[in-house]
């Protein structure tokens, strides 16, 4: 009995609540072809619930070296850490880097390396220019619409905007008016298809013009431009929806090795065209 008690007395009562899973950092960010400065949030997996509460918090010392390399041409960039205070007054690390250009079609590998050599990494391939396939305008329910098919777009565009350039006949620098389309559209036969509501949009931009420049009897529609921000192929949540309840689960919608989160890329492209005389007439515009 005494031996049993002695043995029992010696066993450990320590609790290790963590397991080493080979995951070290969570990474959130993307490369943007429109921006010359790129940003990514780096969150080390920590052993306590609380975030960094102050600039003197022990957690403020982040052991992370962040860099990217362009796998197509070998160019590498070192990212600079910056301690930022969030809107809830807690702190975190935002890494930034200046890029001369984010190249469409190029694959970038981001690595977050700890001083002991362990590493978290993610790759993104920047979307290339889509193929623009514009159908002729057509009447539907007394409204004119025109369908644009974006060929080669991997998933739903992040942001779509129609820009209408219009003004008095003979204007040298006619103003531009934007009608946001957000994430509208649908996938149809492999292409992202957007219905451009010409009648509705021109009513809107006429009103905008009148508010800015006053009423005009005759207006010319000089051009139409569809601007799109397309996300890379991996930036596609399960089920196509950004449902927080699903995406919150670790490892879901993540392209990060040795960690969690997502590193993607966004490319901005635009396509400009003019309407034929008959369509302009139907919409009440003069043809330039």
């Amino acid at each position: 009995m005494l031996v049993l008690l002695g043995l029992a007395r010696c066993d450990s009562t320590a609790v290790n609540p963590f397991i080493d899973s080979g995951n070290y950092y969570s990474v959130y960010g993307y490369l943007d072809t429109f921006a010359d400065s790129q940003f990514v949030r780096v969150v080390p997996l920590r052993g306590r619930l609380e975030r960094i509460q102050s600039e003197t918090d022990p957690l403020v010392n982040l052991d992370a070296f962040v860099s990217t390399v362009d796998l197509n041409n070998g160019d590498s960039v070192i990212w600079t850490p910056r301690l930022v205070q969030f809107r809830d007054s807690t702190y975190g690390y935002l890494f930034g880097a200046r890029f001369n250009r984010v190249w469409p079609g190029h694959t970038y590998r981001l690595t977050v390396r700890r001083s002991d050599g362990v590493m978290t990494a993610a790759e993104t391939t920047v979307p290339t220019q889509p193929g623009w396939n514009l159908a002729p305008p057509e009447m539907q329910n007394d409204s004119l619409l025109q369908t644009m098919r974006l060929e080669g777009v991997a998933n739903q565009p992040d942001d779509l905007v129609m820009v209408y350039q219009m003004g008095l006949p003979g204007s040298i620098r006619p103003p531009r008016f934007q009608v946001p389309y957000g994430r509208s559209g649908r996938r149809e036969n492999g292409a992202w298809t957007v219905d451009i509501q010409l009648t509705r949009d021109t009513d809107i931009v006429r009103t905008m013009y009148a508010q800015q420049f006053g009423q005009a009897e005759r207006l010319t529609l000089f051009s139409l431009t569809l601007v799109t921000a397309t996300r890379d192929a991996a930036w596609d949540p399960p089920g196509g929806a950004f449902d927080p309840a699903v995406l919150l689960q670790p490892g879901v919608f993540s392209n990060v090795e040795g960690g969690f989160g997502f590193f993607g890329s966004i490319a901005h492209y635009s396509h400009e065209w003019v309407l034929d005389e008959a369509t302009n007439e139907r919409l009440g515009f003069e043809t330039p």
Partner: protein
Amino acid sequence: MNNKHLLGVPSLGIRFFWKPRWMIIALLVVGWGNGSSAWAQTATVRVFIRDAEDRKPLQGVNVVLRDAASGQVGSATDGDGYVSLSRLAPGGYTLRATFIGYSSYEASLDLVANSIVNLSIDLEPSEAALDEVLVESERETGATAIVAGLEVLRPVNIERVPMVGVSGDLVAYLQATPGAVSSGDRGGQLFLRGGESTQNLVLIDGIPVYQPFHILGFYSAFPSDIIDRADVYAGGFGASYGGRLSSVIGVTARNGNKQRVDGSASIAPFLSTIRIEGPVIKNRVSFIASVRESLVEQVMPSIFEQRLDYRFGDRFAKLHALPSASTSWSITALQTSDRGNLAGTFKTRRGDVLNVPPSERDSSEVAWDNLALGSRFSFLPPGLPVQAEVAGWFSRTSTRFGVEDEPVRDASVEAIGGEVNLTYVAGRQQLRLGLFGQRSDIQYELGGLFQEIDTNDEQQAEGGLYAESDLFLGALLKLMPGVRVHAFLDKEVTRIEPRLRAEWRPGGVLRGQQVSAAWGLYHQVIVGLTDERDVGNVFTAWASTPLDDIPRAMHVIVGWRMPIVEAGVDVAVEGYHKRLSHLAVPAWSVLPAFTTTLEPGRGTVWGLDARAEVNREQFYGYLGYGLASVEYEAEQEAFSVWFGQPQQRYHPPHDLRHQINAVGRYTLGEVAFSARWQYGSGLPFTRSLGFDDWLLLSGSDVDLRNDPGQVRVLYDRPYRARLPAYHRLDVWLERTFERERVNMLVRAGAVNVYNRDNLFYFDLFTLRRVDQLPLTPSIGIKLEIK
């Protein structure tokens, strides 16, 4: 499961009779079918037996009627001292009442057809037979006297398990039994044979008590001083009990002394007690009252850097009356209160809770109160060969988490109910019938921390009837078939619950081995909501199951018991299995704001209990070993996206795989030394990969610069790790001083003698560790006036 076949009439056929539930009902009907038409030609004798000195009803007295023609019939008195013998042929009989420790009673009776004879008998205690009382009592109630999950406990059994203080407590005994898992030396939760603490039905004189265990785990609301007996079903309970999935702890409180006033008082660092009892109307009406209040906050505010900030107590009173020879009436009242901070170490660091503003106080303060009131009237209806009982009760419990003036959450359940029970005795056979009903009002305010469920105020009604029987097939085999029809009115669902218990004594009634078995179906509509962030998950809010199906359990128990007379050792082994379905288990979430959204789950429990007991003149020893496996299986969407499979099997936090309890007591004259060693293998917990922040990266609209994101805990698969094992040695030395009318007991000792850091709780979110009591000395004195 739909209920159309439950309310309708099933088609008859061979297959129908092979269904266990219908076989049991058939057994009930057939067992009682023959001879029932003979009532009009027979007589009934109803006997009420009490102690001639203190006028307490005596339970277990053997009453036998003999006549020259048909031999003998007999039965034993129930808890109110009654026994009714029916279907007796008219004629002359000799009635004999015997009870070890009392002088026998014998009388002649002449019964005429259609008569009911009422007798009231006072048995005189016999000094010469007192030792025999203990021997016989132990045989039926010792630690190895377990019969298909049922243990009948008497105060003498409870007192044998040494504990802090100078009086025994029911929970100390229960914690020493294999298959019982407690939340440690604080927390107030008890899990029996794989069931959860909210799946226990705890009754005092038939009144449910929802949170009956005190915040310091050494104590329940049931000190041995007020207990007459406790029927503890770790499973396989009969049809008279229902509404819970796991177990029943049915405490019958003592009636007060009807002859003279006596009482006791004790003082010890953890708890002080006063008990007083006596006649209100001599020989007819008595009272007993007990008050216990904790002293630990005053006497031992902190020990070894742990702050013992606990205040608890209970107040009990019972009035018992014998208005006539064929009636008895009782009123029982129990009130308990508990308050304390379970994370004592944290509070020590931050100072006294009263000196800091509420917002800065440690939110692991928890409190609960119980109030149970009930009345029970037993009588022998004129003209009917039955014993009848009518009871009504009210029970309320309220609980809060957080400081008193600003609780983080609070909850209450208030229930009112009643029952009518009839017992018909014919020879050795007994038939018990009953009606029951209750209405509950459940409220909670969960402070927005529970997903989907925040506030609730719901009413719930249950009712039904039961029938169960004791059928003797020959001298050695006893079957107890039963059926309970339980209607959950608010769910518009009725469930039929067949039950069967069996005892077989191949070696004879008094000696030799005993084989027992039990099988039954059980349903429970209310579930306990807990938040895993709470220290020890103590805060419980009750609610109706949010799922369509009523949680259900099926129990199977097979036991064997054997006295090894030569060695003076009794051994008992029991295997058990519980299959749980339609459970409501917490949904898994990565949010540290832990969800209690409930999802369907099912569970399987397997276990084996082994016990050995030695009882000699100076030495008492008990060794218990429990082997158990509790496994839950749940299917949740989160599992699918997280682990790749929607189904996960896991062992819940009360899955105690190995458990050892050893109790020893050596008595030398007026001095006794006792020791208790407990061992429990590690309980399951869920490890994590760590914490991170999560941002919804839906596109270029994410604000990386200003959005802090959401804190996330990166869990491993559920409950894959085990906490360290728990073990503790307690030792006690006591001396009894006996004088003519005064007894004094002094007991000194310590818990956790080798000061092991037994874990009580580990907070994964704050990495805060809270240990159970360190080496804690204690001394207590008890005075008893007889």
